[in-house]
């Protein structure tokens, strides 16, 4: 194994760890939000610091590889990909952290009816499944699985597009507190953004494995 290969292996391992942690943060954010569990929310906020430290460490690692090893071809695409994935994973964890902040801020649980109406559980489940898919796709270098998330992202977008209508009707009918409705809408928006970042990661995995640029193209 060359020195560069050892560095790339370590970088890959760091990204796998970060993906696992981002997934865990997202799963916890679902539990915290659906059950209004402030203890879990505190855990998320605490772990977010670790995510930030990991992001900086991976950035530095990529910078060192560029400067010291001048990677080319697949190696070059791999390091570029890790740099981008790193940033997307950090954003995913940021959204989980943001949702945890809401949980601590909101003083009252949402009713099951409104959560069902906006398909909140379903949204979280799709987003978690997407993160899991890219985790496995990256680990197994499986571009077919990476491509699967494009459809899942479309499902998230659809739920998000309906959310404002569903929430405004619900507020009208039930006179629910306006402020908590805003929190709900923002949470939906955050989970939808998680889907966008997972999609970016999938594109980047395909880029480094197949040298194909999918960004800003219609996905098949």
């Amino acid at each position, binding site marked *: 194994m*060359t020195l*560069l*290969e050892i560095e790339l292996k370590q970088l890959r391992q760091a990204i796998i760890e970060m993906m696992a942690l981002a997934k865990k943060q997202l799963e916890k954010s679902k539990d915290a939000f659906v059950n209004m569990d402030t203890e879990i929310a505190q855990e998320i906020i605490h772990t977010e610091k670790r995510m930030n430290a990991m992001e900086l460490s991976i950035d530095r690692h990529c910078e060192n590889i560029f400067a010291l090893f*001048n*990677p*080319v*071809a*697949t*190696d*070059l*695409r791999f390091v570029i990909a890790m740099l981008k994935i790193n940033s997307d994973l950090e954003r995913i964890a940021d959204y989980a952290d943001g949702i945890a902040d809401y949980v601590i801020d909101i003083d009252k649980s949402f009713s099951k009816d409104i959560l069902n109406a906006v398909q909140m559980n379903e949204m979280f489940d799709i987003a978690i499944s997407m993160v899991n898919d890219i985790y496995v796709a990256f680990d197994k270098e499986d571009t077919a699985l990476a491509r699967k998330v494009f459809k899942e992202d479309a499902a998230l977008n659809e739920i998000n597009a309906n959310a404002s209508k569903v929430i405004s009707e619900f507020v009208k009918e039930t006179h629910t507190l306006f402020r908590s409705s805003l929190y709900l809408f923002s949470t939906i928006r955050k989970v939808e953004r998680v889907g966008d970042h997972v999609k970016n990661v999938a594109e980047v995995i395909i880029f480094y494995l197949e*040298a194909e640029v999918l960004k800003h193209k219609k996905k098949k």
Partner: protein
Amino acid sequence: MIMRIESIKNYKMQEQANAETRPYKLATRNVNAYYGNKKVLQDVNMQVRPNTVTALIGPSGCGKSTFLRLFNRMNDYIDTFRKEGEIIINGIDIYRKKIKIEELRKTIGMVFQKPNPFPKSIYENVAYGLRIQGINNKTTLDEIVEKSLIQSALWEEVKDDLKKNALALSGGQQQRLCIARALAVEPSVILMDEPASALDPVSTSKIEDLIYELKQHYTILIVTHNMHQAGRVSDKTGFFYLGELVEFGDTKQIFTNPKNNKTENYISGRFG
């Protein structure tokens, strides 16, 4: 400022497009080469457009230097050397019997790995090839020496001391002097065999800048072991392995997405 950058970019793209449509300057057809019974090049076909830089890369003993020296027939000095196939410059097979080697070498300059100036003055080094051609008129020589030293980016450093012995120059200056000497006889092709491998980073950078400048007027083939140098200076790259031209294509493509696994493994330092 942005408009200026855009116009330079457009100009470069246009230049590239023009270069892609010009007739080939150099070409080989089904070239095999042997040292005695040992086959060192195997069925090599390559076509090179004028005013381009082509890098030849590959591990030691892969045949890239033999291939380079086909174009000025330097391999002919090796008794056991023989070749099959055609080596074409400007549409003419340079191994035809009618071709005079001295005439051929006027159009093909060569720069070697180690700077090899003559133990003469800077001026005489550059004028040497011209004097051999019978040019002794001082004004003509002065003009060509100055022009060649300007082209090789050495003029500013030596213009006040052209009588200085060339061996007193630094390694990087000596190499640029050798390039000036090659340019003085007005070749149309320059062959470079690891021209910067013995130089420090600053001198290497100067030689690389020079190669970029020179391609406006010359067609350049360069053998290099420095992958990043190949990436920086060349338009096309050919990867040789065990005498075969494994892959030949745009340098950007070779260094970002090579088609052949051997190329990928070589350029990424996994073998060679």
